[in-house]
């Protein structure tokens, strides 16, 4: 089958507990841009049990059409039935682009689906655009240059290199996209989705693993990806109890506490507050890095912050290489003093 038969930009609309994930809206926003460049539409693929009611919400954020795969086997995320759902949608509707959020679900679903439909998958993209491949035609081989390709840019090597990837000979062109990077559109109030229901049939086999138990972490209400100000602590904070001084600073600024991987590994903070390559990518207006040495895996998740303030007793800590303002000193003294000064200033 010719590649030109594949049409449209499809977005996997991740939901958990029948609540859409923010990344679904972000992908729709980006998908709309790409669809405009290609002169096509953006379609959301909604997979779950009793999820049809979520379709209008996807229209509000830009979906021209919503394909709903609704089946009791899809109540909770499991790799096999979800792979079957999405791979079947791809095989039936033949999109030219398929975007999936690079979440703990998407980074499992995406690879398995791509292997099943035999196409390439570019992981954790931070930039997507339509362009030519090769970027510059080789002299004499202008006719071989392909146009209207999805160019997928991603960091690798712990954020030290940037690669732009194309998938010129297979369809769909698939990417997982880092949450928090793409922009959702302003909601179109009252938008109604054009819904198409599709059920490829679900017959359990050995690949349908059994869920024995679901254990939810005590839900931290703050989403660090939405925070305008983050007060982030690292190993240097020293203890779980000592995060109190960071919480006090965050409170006076109306910010949120986040942390580095070391803090999660020490059990001082839950994983949903973790910033970095294996945690979340954040772009707050101000990022305080308190007692964080600045391993590149961490920096990869926060370097796009508008303003970075670092406090560390080690003046050679790599965090100072990315900080706008670096204070070399004892965080136990500086942080409370800064909180007090801000309190006094704001009280004026």
């Amino acid at each position: 089958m010719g590649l030109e038969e594949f049409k449209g930009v499809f977005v996997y609309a991740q939901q958990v507990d029948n609540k859409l994930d923010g990344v679904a809206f972000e992908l729709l926003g980006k998908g709309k841009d790409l669809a405009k460049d290609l002169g096509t539409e953006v379609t959301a693929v909604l997979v779950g049990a009793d999820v049809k009611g979520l379709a209008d919400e996807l229209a509000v954020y830009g979906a021209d059409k919503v394909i709903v795969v609704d089946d009791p086997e899809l109540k909770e995320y499991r790799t096999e039935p979800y792979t079957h759902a999405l791979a079947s949608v791809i095989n039936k509707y033949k999109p030219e682009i398929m975007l999936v959020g690079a979440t703990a679900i998407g980074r499992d679903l995406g690879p398995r689906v791509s292997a099943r439909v035999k196409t390439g998958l570019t992981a954790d993209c931070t930039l997507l655009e339509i362009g030519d491949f090769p970027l510059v035609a080789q002299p004499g081989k202008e006719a071989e240059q392909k146009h209207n390709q999805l160019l997928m840019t991603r960091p690798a090597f712990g954020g030290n290199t940037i690669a732009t990837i194309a998938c010129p000979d297979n369809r769909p062109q698939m990417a997982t996209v880092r949450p928090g990077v793409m922009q959702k559109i302003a909601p179109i109030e009252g938008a109604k989705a054009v819904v198409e229901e599709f059920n490829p049939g679900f017959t359990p086999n050995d690949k349908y693993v059994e869920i024995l138990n679901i254990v939810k972490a005590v839900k931290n209400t703050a989403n660090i990806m939405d925070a305008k100000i983050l007060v982030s602590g690292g190993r240097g904070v020293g203890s779980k109890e000592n995060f109190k001084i960071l919480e006090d600073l965050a409170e006076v600024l109306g910010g949120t506490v986040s942390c580095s991987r070391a803090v999660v590994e020490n059990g001082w903070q839950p994983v949903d507050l973790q910033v970095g390559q294996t945690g979340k990518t954040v772009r707050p207006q101000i990022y305080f890095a308190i007692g964080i040495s600045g391993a590149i895996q961490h920096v990869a998740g926060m370097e796009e912050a508008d303003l970075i303030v670092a406090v560390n007793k080690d003046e050679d800590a790599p965090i100072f290489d990315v900080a706008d303002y670096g204070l070399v000193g004892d965080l136990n003294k500086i942080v409370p003093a800064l909180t007090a000064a801000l309190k006094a200033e704001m009280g004026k």
Partner: protein
Amino acid sequence: MKIVVCIKQVPDTKGGVKFNPDGTLDRGAMLTIMNPDDKAGLEAALRLKEQYGAEVTVVTMGLPKADEVLREAMAMGADKGILVTDRVLGGADTWATSTTIAGAIRNLEYDLIITGRQAIDGDTAQVGPQIAEHLDLPVISYAQDIKIDGDYVIVQRQYEDRYHELKAKMPCLITALSELNVPRYMTPGGIFDAYEKEVTVWGRADLKDVDDSDLGLKGSPTKIAKASDKVRKGAGEKVVLDTEEAVAYLMGKFKEKHVI
């Protein structure tokens, strides 16, 4: 029980990163290590071996030098090592890599395959689930705890805000998080033994049920259009002041930037 563990030799990006004066990465100056998530997967396999009895085979794909990580794995306690290396396998993306490793594993007996969640050089987390798809096995990604129950594995699968306790029939594939455990060190006896043990080297001809068109650069659906080292934004100001001065300095900057 037979366990296959897939490991990768990667440049050490944690701490060992060196930059050129122009801000690009100095790869030549970096050391190589066993990928951390893979090492956690190996440790998990070795613990299952101690608990239930198992034969642990480590498999890697790479340059001939990747033999080093197999020796390290055997010094930790793995029983056998297989190096898949061939010029035609070079330049593989995750599709071609997973096809290659699946082709190697088809020659082996296994109840369980363990891979790391992701490698610190590519950070894709794709190869494990893709191997499972090629071998038509159940996959459990992001494992934070692994137990065996008869013919089944019971695994805690991590998500952002929860974990699922999953039960899968073996054979199956699990991708391990480095949080799973703290890997053991090599022992002096183990290091000695590792060099007594044999590493099996396989090439293209040893891969089972694999088409040439699915291997190496040629078999990779994704192609690199452009790659560059990221030039970081320069460092800002760094000051060493006593607490009072430091706070005054920062407050001044905040006012200047209209933060407060």
